[in-house]
């Protein structure tokens, strides 16, 4: 790796806006942070002069904890904000909320927001670096980066030519879109598979294969990234019932046992066991679901570190 590599952007708003070199740089840097978080003392002083605000306007467990751990392991000062217990409830606008927090000299903002594009709006208004921790059904870039990191880890490095299938609720998933952009930048072949009602028509225009046949797709892929059915985002009926979904589209033990090769099983969580994936598959030897969580901290450390380095330069 060259010593002068920088991200091409001061924000991480989505994978779509990163170059392939950015993605490679983040994943290569994360490799070194993975070593750091496995040391007896899992902390480096790189961001000791940086303050990061974690603004979560939507519920989150692992992403918020993962970002907070990443920030603390980089020695950054952190402030946490959750919409449920804030002045947002009193009618304050997003820009006012963020400007008030930035007035307290915050350098970077990690934000999850239900409105797609909220991060772009903020990026045009404020000076701090912004990391998108999920915007509605649009993008979740750090999840895609940690997924790609985990796939590279599981498949021994290069993803070029590797076959990755994303199963499940593609329509309501921000992880799916970010995964597609990320994997394509790394040269992988990407397919989505699920019920026709949960796969948006524009998927083919992104150069993604579309399949409605789970068995055939499982046999095709090297990695199965299984997504959750997002009932909270579905205002109409997209599937007859969860039981029927499991029968026709779930990644079940029987389906996996019928395969003549091992398939790496991934899931970004939270898992609906018995719906999109069976417990026996989620906990099987081919599952790297918990590795994804561990890798998430290393990847987020890399993102924050590289953004901070760019801020210093700018």
């Amino acid at each position, binding site marked *: 790796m060259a010593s002068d*590599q920088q991200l091409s952007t001061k924000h991480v708003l989505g994978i779509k806006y990163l170059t392939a070199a950015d993605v490679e740089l983040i994943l*290569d840097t994360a490799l*070194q942070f993975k070593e750091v978080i496995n040391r007896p003392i899992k902390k*480096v*002083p*790189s961001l000791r002069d940086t303050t990061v605000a974690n603004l979560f306007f939507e519920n989150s467990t692992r992403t918020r904890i993962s970002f907070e751990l990443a920030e603390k392991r980089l020695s950054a000062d952190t402030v946490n904000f959750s919409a449920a217990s804030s002045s947002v409830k009193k009618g304050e606008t997003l820009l006012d909320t963020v400007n008030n927090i930035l007035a307290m000299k915050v350098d970077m903002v990690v934000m999850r927001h239900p409105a797609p594009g909220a991060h772009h709006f903020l990026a045009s208004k404020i000076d701090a670096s912004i990391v998108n921790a999920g915007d509605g059904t649009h993008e979740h870039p750090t999840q895609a980066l940690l997924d790609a990191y985990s796939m590279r880890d599981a498949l021994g490095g290069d993803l070029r030519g590797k076959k990755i299938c994303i199963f499940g609720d593609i329509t309501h998933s921000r992880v799916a879109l970010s995964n597609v952009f990320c994997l394509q930048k790394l040269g992988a072949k990407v397919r989505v598979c699920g019920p026709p009602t949960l796969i948006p028509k524009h998927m083919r225009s992104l150069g993604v294969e579309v399949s409605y046949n789970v068995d055939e797709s499982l046999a095709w892929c090297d990695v199965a990234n299984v997504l959750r059915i997002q009932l909270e985002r579905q205002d109409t009926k997209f599937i007859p019932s969860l039981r029927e979904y499991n029968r026709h589209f779930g990644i079940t033990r029987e389906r996996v046992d019928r395969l003549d090769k091992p398939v790496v099983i991934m899931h970004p969580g939270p898992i609906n066991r018995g719906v999109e994936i069976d417990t026996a598959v989620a906990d099987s030897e081919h599952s790297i679901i918990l590795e994804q969580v561990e890798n998430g901290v290393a990847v987020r450390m890399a993102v924050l570190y590289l953004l901070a*380095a760019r801020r*210093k330069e700018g």
Partner: protein
Amino acid sequence: MPVLRVIHDCDRFALTIERLCRHLIEEHGDFANTCLVGVQTGGVQLAERLRDKLTQMGVTDYDYGKLDITFYRDDFRTAKGPLTPQQTEIDFLVENKRVILVDDVLYSGRTTLSALTALNHFGRPAQVELLVMVDRRFRRSLPIKANYRGITVDSLHDEYVEVQWAETHGKDQIILTGSE
């Protein structure tokens, strides 16, 4: 025009490596409680060379690691230092061990300070010593001194000393670059 001057040629380079190893054996005996840690990237190349020589001299049983100090640099906020980290590979604890920190050039002392901070994340060593191939003894910014040194170079501030390796430059030698 910048000029290059070889200040330590290939033959003397090999002799210096041998002398450093003999000095280490004199101080550390059988290396029973010793670890050798190279600082990325020049220090690792030197440490590898010392390791080869120590093996020839019959010293093989000690911990060996590579330490990257990128995340510990005090110039991170000025973005002048290398940004992209290299590999750290220390699969042992340095708790109560005698550590020989190896670097190619000692100049301001800031790299060594960062390396000492980084090393503390792997335990509390009983002792840390510093071995360098080149000691640019003037212009030190911090109170840091090498225990073992290959050569001592008195150079001007705008001069640059580089340790070159057969693997990367085709020849083991030390050059000094300066203005005419």
